[in-house]
């Protein structure tokens, strides 16, 4: 196909013409598939799952290697300035112990109060435990690959969290691995609240690893740097009281925050069942009936 006309051979000319047609067909097929995957993202669920199963275990195995290498570097770093660090950690531990006892007392009081109010206590079922082993490299979307799949009970739509905070939710699941939509993706919206005063806010990803936090009520910017955002449980997908992000910068009437669970440094993450499955099901039902 390099030259316009490959000599006088009729056969070569036809070959050229048909390969031209095949490329046009490739473009058309690609465009049709693209439209289908944008309009009905669930169409290719199975085949995406198979691809995840191929790469997921490889990434998981290689992850051990990089984690060890990173561990050596950061491990060496810890010995630097160890004495003063030690003193600081001891002071912090002392303060922390006091806070912990307070917190335990509050939990107990809370439990008693809830018993009086006869509130239904949600059981937080851990569906699966795994590691974040990879991510989307070059895309405005922020996905991560999680090392547990349908075989472990992971289903599309389940929230993923780590010990540090909320990671995201499952959007593709294979038998052995699944894909997570991180909370820093633009399409991810987490109903949250400000830990300081419980004010309801919306946390939407910015696509570059940070999160845009906006208050629900219009008014003065309520944020301060270092404020912590936690989930509110509204909407029924994410469980309440999970740390989401820390405010780093004010930005007009909103603020920019960084996720507390850094997917690059998250060793283990757990998948939980949707907090209020009934609410999520009702919402998706209305969403699908709204769609044409």
């Amino acid at each position, binding site marked *: *196909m*390099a*030259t*316009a006309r490959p000599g006088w051979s009729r056969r070569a000319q036809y070959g050229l013409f048909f*390969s*031209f047609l*095949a*490329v*046009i*067909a*490739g*473009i058309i*097929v*690609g*465009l*049709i*598939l*693209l*439209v289908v*995957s*944008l309009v009905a*993202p669930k169409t*290719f669920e199975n*085949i995406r799952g198979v*691809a995840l199963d*191929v*790469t997921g275990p490889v*990434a*998981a195995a*290689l*992850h051990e290697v*990089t984690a060890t290498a990173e561990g050596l570097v950061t491990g060496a770093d810890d010995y630097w300035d160890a004495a003063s660090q030690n003193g600081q950690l001891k002071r912090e531990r002392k303060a922390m112990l006091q806070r912990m006892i307070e917190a335990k007392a509050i939990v107990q009081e809370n439990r008693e109060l809830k018993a009086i109010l006869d509130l239904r206590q949600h059981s937080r079922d851990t569906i699966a435990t795994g590691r*974040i*082993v*990879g*991510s*989307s*490299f*070059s*895309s*405005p*979307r*922020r*996905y*991560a690959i999680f090392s547990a799949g349908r075989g472990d009970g992971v289903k599309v739509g389940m929230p993923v969290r780590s010990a540090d905070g909320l990671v995201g939710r499952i959007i*593709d699941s294979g038998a052995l691995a699944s*894909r997570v939509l*991180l909370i*820093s*993706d*633009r*399409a991810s919206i987490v109903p949250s609240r400000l830990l300081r005063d419980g004010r309801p806010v919306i946390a939407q*990803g*910015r*696509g*570059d*690893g940070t999160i845009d936090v906006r208050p629900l009520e219009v008014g003065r910017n309520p944020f301060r740097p270092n404020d912590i955002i936690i989930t509110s449980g509204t909407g029924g997908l994410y469980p309440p009281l999970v740390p989401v992000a820390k405010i780093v910068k004010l930005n007009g009437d909103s603020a920019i925050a960084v996720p507390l669970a*850094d*997917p*690059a440094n998250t060793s283990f993450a757990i998948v939980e069942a949707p907090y209020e499955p009934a609410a999520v099901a009702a919402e998706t039902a209305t969403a699908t009936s709204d769609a044409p």
Partner: protein
Amino acid sequence: MVRAALSQNRKIGKGPVRFAEFVPSATVVAASLLAALPIVSTSGWFPNFGYLVLIGWRLLRADPWPAWWAAPLGFINDLFTGYPIGFSIALWSATMLALDLVDRRTMWRDYWIEWILAAVLIAIDEWLQWRIASAAGADVPFTMMLPPLVISIGAFPLSAWLVSRVDAWRLGR
């Protein structure tokens, strides 16, 4: 070609490796599979490896593979990188077609023209990714796409050099 024939250290009796005609497409698949590397990127500034290698091959040779192979290669890229299925199929096929048209028009080629061509194609790729992300509900500002664009354009000579090394190896030069 002439220069290769004139050079002194020609390895006599060394021909193309077995399956030499499948080596280019295999390297494109291998580049797509780099998405399985256990690196967690929170900013997404890595280049689109599969596409870089694809245009590297296509600019080096007019027929690294039959032109319609771009569609299945793109499908593999879509599967492993997590792009919406169909995106790379359409873009890669269109790239093959566009470069064939460019081949008819250009009178002469050098490294700069190839780099500029690659830069234009990479820019189209990034712009389309941005449009499709916003169609799928993730409308980020376009300024966010500029760092990966610059990095990809800067990475193209490296991938083109690697491709030319692989080409020399597969032909036994």
